[in-house]
């Protein structure tokens, strides 16, 4: 039994007020709040167990290294990876995708080679590929979503041509809430020998992820959306792909030997982890993932599905509100605009006065905004601690905004 009130009590920030009203935090798509265990882990690490990792042989360095390295295994369990050495620790999905762009794609893609993207990708899964387009003549093939906001796996597979070298696709749209059937895409792509990168920045937050079952080659996650510290994250990379990769960022910790005229690299995954990492952030991420697995990722997903269904029914009752994306199994992410002249920023200003935190803007999804014919939307994105009562507060605040801007 998932008791959301017990869960809420784990998140100290949720008991604060904003503008004299209880905080209703619906900006989880941008970043999630942190449970006390994560905050305590960060404080404890800095208070009692901090030193650089992989370096010293002294006690504190050993403790910090053990805790830090332990997170690799936690992430492997969270993603059901076969081997924790396939997990590269980093600062989040943006770094993960750039690592693939620079380390895997750049050395092997020739002018005219193609990368397939869906139109609903986040800029983190677009701009690194634009680099390849600008710098080495790689062609980006875009696949549209249908009028409901669904991405047909067959449409993605149909876009594969003789020059296709990679498919990079989101698991869950940060704007529409659409869940993509990445398993079907990976199965078809594998038959044609095309690797698939999955942007799991949102997906891993809202549903159980099994990278072996999905069959992808790369799966990127972001710690701060997973109730962990900002500046933490990871990318899971299939062993064969990892072996094909060149290191991206050079520096300490990723080398075996360095001389004046030669350098050899550490074994993966260390080869892809240059410099002092986000030690404490990563330790905090491990605690956050254990927290999620403790609640049960499937239980979290079931709770959010209830919230999504309730929010959908309440928002549908507002005939002056336009919700973008009507995918059947969509996650609890609702982007909307208001009839008339009100801008999404107007809307979020009024909601904020009611204590409701939402995001207003283009959501780092320019091509999708173009596709929808919009410049911005308001987005309410729910997390594991949100409640039906908070949906009601959102609706009340929207009704007030509608009245003010009418």
């Amino acid at each position, binding site marked *: 039994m998932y008791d959301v009130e017990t869960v809420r009590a784990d998140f100290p920030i949720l008991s604060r007020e904003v503008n004299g009203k209880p905080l209703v935090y619906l900006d989880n798509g941008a970043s999630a709040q942190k449970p006390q265990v994560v905050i305590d882990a960060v404080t404890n690490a800095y208070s009692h167990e901090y030193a650089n990792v992989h370096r010293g042989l002294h006690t504190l360095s050993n403790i910090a290294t053990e805790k830090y390295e332990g997170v690799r295994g936690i992430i492997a369990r969270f993603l059901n990876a076969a081997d924790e050495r396939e997990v590269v620790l980093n600062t989040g999905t943006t770094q993960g995708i750039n690592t693939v762009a620079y380390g895997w794609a750049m050395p092997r893609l020739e002018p005219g080679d193609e990368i397939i993207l869906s139109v609903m990708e986040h800029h983190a899964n677009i701009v690194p590929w634009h680099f390849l387009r600008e710098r080495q003549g790689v062609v980006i093939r875009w696949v549209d979503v249908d009028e409901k906001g669904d991405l047909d796996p067959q449409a993605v597979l149909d876009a594969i041509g003789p020059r296709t070298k990679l498919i990079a696709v989101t698991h869950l749209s940060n704007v529409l809430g659409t869940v993509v059937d990445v398993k079907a895409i990976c199965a078809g792509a594998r038959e044609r020998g095309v690797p698939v990168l999955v942007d799991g920045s949102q997906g891993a937050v809202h549903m159980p992820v099994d990278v072996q079952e999905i069959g992808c080659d790369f799966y990127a996650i972001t710690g701060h959306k997973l109730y962990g510290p900002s500046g933490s994250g990871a990318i899971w990379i299939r062993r064969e792909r990892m072996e094909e990769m060149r290191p991206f960022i050079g520096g300490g910790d990723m080398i075996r030997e360095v001389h004046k005229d030669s350098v050899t690299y550490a074994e993966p995954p260390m080869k892809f982890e240059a410099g002092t990492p986000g030690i404490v952030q990563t330790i905090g991420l491990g605690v956050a993932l254990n927290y999620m697995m403790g609640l049960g990722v499937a239980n979290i997903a079931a709770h959010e599905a209830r919230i999504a269904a309730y929010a959908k029914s309440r928002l549908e009752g507002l005939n002056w509100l336009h919700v973008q994306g009507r995918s059947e199994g969509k996650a609890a992410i609702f982007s909307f605009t208001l009839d008339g002249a009100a*801008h999404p920023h*107007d809307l979020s200003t009024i909601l904020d006065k009611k204590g409701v935190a939402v995001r207003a803007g283009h959501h780092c999804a320019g091509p999708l905004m173009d596709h929808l014919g919009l410049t911005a939307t308001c987005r309410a994105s729910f997390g594991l601690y949100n409640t039906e009562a908070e949906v009601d507060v959102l609706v009340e605040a929207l009704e007030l905004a509608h009245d*003010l801007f009418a």
Partner: protein
Amino acid sequence: MATQSFEEVVEDFEFLDDWEDRYRYVIEQGKEMSPLDDALKVPATKVEGCASQVWLHPRIDDGRLHFDGESDAMIVRGLIALLRRLYNGLTLDEVLAVDARAEMARLGLNEHLSSQRSNGLRAMIERIRSIAAEAERA
């Protein structure tokens, strides 16, 4: 010192108890403002640093500043309307002497003035001040 027109706004605000009515007032002010001609919405009149789109079109008549403006966001349009009441008709020296932060604080709207706020009120005030300063140098 503020214009008579702005003093009237301050007086109106004294009768508005809660933030809803104040926002309603601000939004109404924006609605009553005539829209800026599309031909004037050009890069030179665009104010960067606002989350929504903002244009300010100034003219100097007889040493006095007048400007029109527009935004695609209704609250920001309203804030532009209030700035017009604050500044329009002042001499360039007077424009530069206005303490906009203090004046907006009289309306309880100074929360819009912190540099991290994305509505761009601060950017608009800076634009108005630089227009006046430039005109004075010319």
